[in-house]
């Protein structure tokens, strides 16, 4: 047990050390694969100059807004689909048809409709998580034991009461599963969208660095994306624990 934990720390350090050594000794061409120390230096410089915080801030804002714009209607529609068979029958074919389309493929169309500005970035994030959260919410409601609905009805709950006291809290664990899955997709899609057509954001930073052959800066962009994903997972885990105290 202690052995494996030690290994988990040692292996990334060893990896970085070997990389550093290979790069310094010239076995790896430092122009193509800069040493970790060089990447760290670039990261520091970009942070001090304000370039990195600027781009990261823009990407984070797009993800947050997109998350809100996507998940709120997704939960509402997902609950409706879970509770009502006719609504489910009417919407399921549409959802099933649109869900598998890679959302980045819709991006040119989104730009065409909404322009190159923030609206298109927020929309593509929203779109990329909408179906995931919707399907998870619906599955969450459908998976609820009938007994819960019986309790609600026996105590006189109407449709709205059943919605707020049974379907929503009952589906919340599944909703969080959807949000966590969605976070990964949101990162993929926002960085992709920024690569394709944008004047700011992490993706844009990576693309710009490529064009001026700033390889260390490209690596710095990747590193920041990884850290962002990690922080997002922690934030969602925290939120989940707060929202689902009965699951702890």
């Amino acid at each position, binding site marked *: 047990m202690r052995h494996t934990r030690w290994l988990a720390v040692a292996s990334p350090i060893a990896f970085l050390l070997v990389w550093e050594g290979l790069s310094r000794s010239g076995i790896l061409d430092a122009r193509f694969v800069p040493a970790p120390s060089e990447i760290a230096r670039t990261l520091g410089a970009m942070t001090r100059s304000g370039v990195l915080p600027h781009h990261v801030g823009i990407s984070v804002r797009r993800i947050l807004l997109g998350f809100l714009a996507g998940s709120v209607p997704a939960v509402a529609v997902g609950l409706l689909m879970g509770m009502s068979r006719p609504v489910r029958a009417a919407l399921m074919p549409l959802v099933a048809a649109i869900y598998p389309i890679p959302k980045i493929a819709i991006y040119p169309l989104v730009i065409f409709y909404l322009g190159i500005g923030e609206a298109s970035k927020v929309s593509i994030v929203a779109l990329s998580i909408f179906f995931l959260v919707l399907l998870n919410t619906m599955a969450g409601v459908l998976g609820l*034991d009938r*007994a*819960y609905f*019986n*309790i*609600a*009805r*026996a*105590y*006189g*709950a109407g449709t709205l*009461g059943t919605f707020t*006291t*049974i379907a929503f*809290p*009952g589906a*919340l664990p599944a909703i969080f599963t959807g949000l966590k899955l969605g976070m990964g997709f949101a990162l993929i899609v926002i960085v992709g969208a920024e690569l394709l057509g944008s004047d700011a954001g992490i993706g844009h930073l990576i693309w710009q660095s490529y064009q001026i052959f700033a390889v260390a800066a490209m690596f710095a962009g990747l590193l920041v994306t990884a850290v962002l994903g990690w922080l997002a997972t922690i934030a969602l885990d925290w939120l989940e624990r707060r929202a*689902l*105290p*009965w*699951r702890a």
Partner: protein
Amino acid sequence: MTPAPAVIPAAPPGQARIAVAGLSKSYPGAHGPLLALDDVTFDVGEGEFVACIGPSGCGKTTLLHILAGLMPPTSGMVRMPSPGPGRLPAAVVFQGISTLPWFTVLQNVEYGLRLMGVPRQERRERALDHIRRVGLLPFRDAFPPHLSEGMRQRVSIARALATDPQILLMDEPFANLDAQNRLLLQEELLRIWADSRKTVLFVTHSLDEAIRLSDRVLVMSAAPGRILMEVQIPLPRPRDFGTLRQDPRYGELSAALWDVLREEVLKGREHG
């Protein structure tokens, strides 16, 4: 199809009781309708504790769900008391999953009151009062998944009683408890019942439970469920389970009921 069945909500004033006449229920099945309840007729008087006993799958739960308004009967008449302000005509204690895991004990007990629109302050006081009666005051902010099955059923009983119902419908509420906890909760239920003297219909498949708790036992047949017989339980109250068992009438009642029930259980096994 027969015309819409009559569930007449209004009861004669001051007479909180259940009246069921000619009640039948059938479910659509692969080979035509399946009869679950067949011409069930009985009354439960004001303040009476009636147990309904029958083999598994005899339609006891169906009967209770019809009385609770969870499903319509196919034909026949059900008369339940009409609702009063801040008071439910009938509150149900369910079998198995009977609490909402995402609400605290307090929120669970407040649940019926909240749906009735009872003001926050009053609803809190009434809920806390009933949580105290079932001895769960220290656990009022706990969530049901962190409690034992027995505690969860106490929460469920408190929720039902907090709505000050005219009738308490109980669907094998202690079925998932071990034998000792079951005895404890039965004692507790009788103690609480002695205070409120609610009209109770208690569905169970346990003979002992039925005799210990009730004033009268309805014996149901194997599916389709019919009322085979009614037996008065003339044992004195308050009932102490220790001395009850030594009462010769207890053994006689138990034997008489088992005679009828045994055949039905065997019948149910042949068909099931």
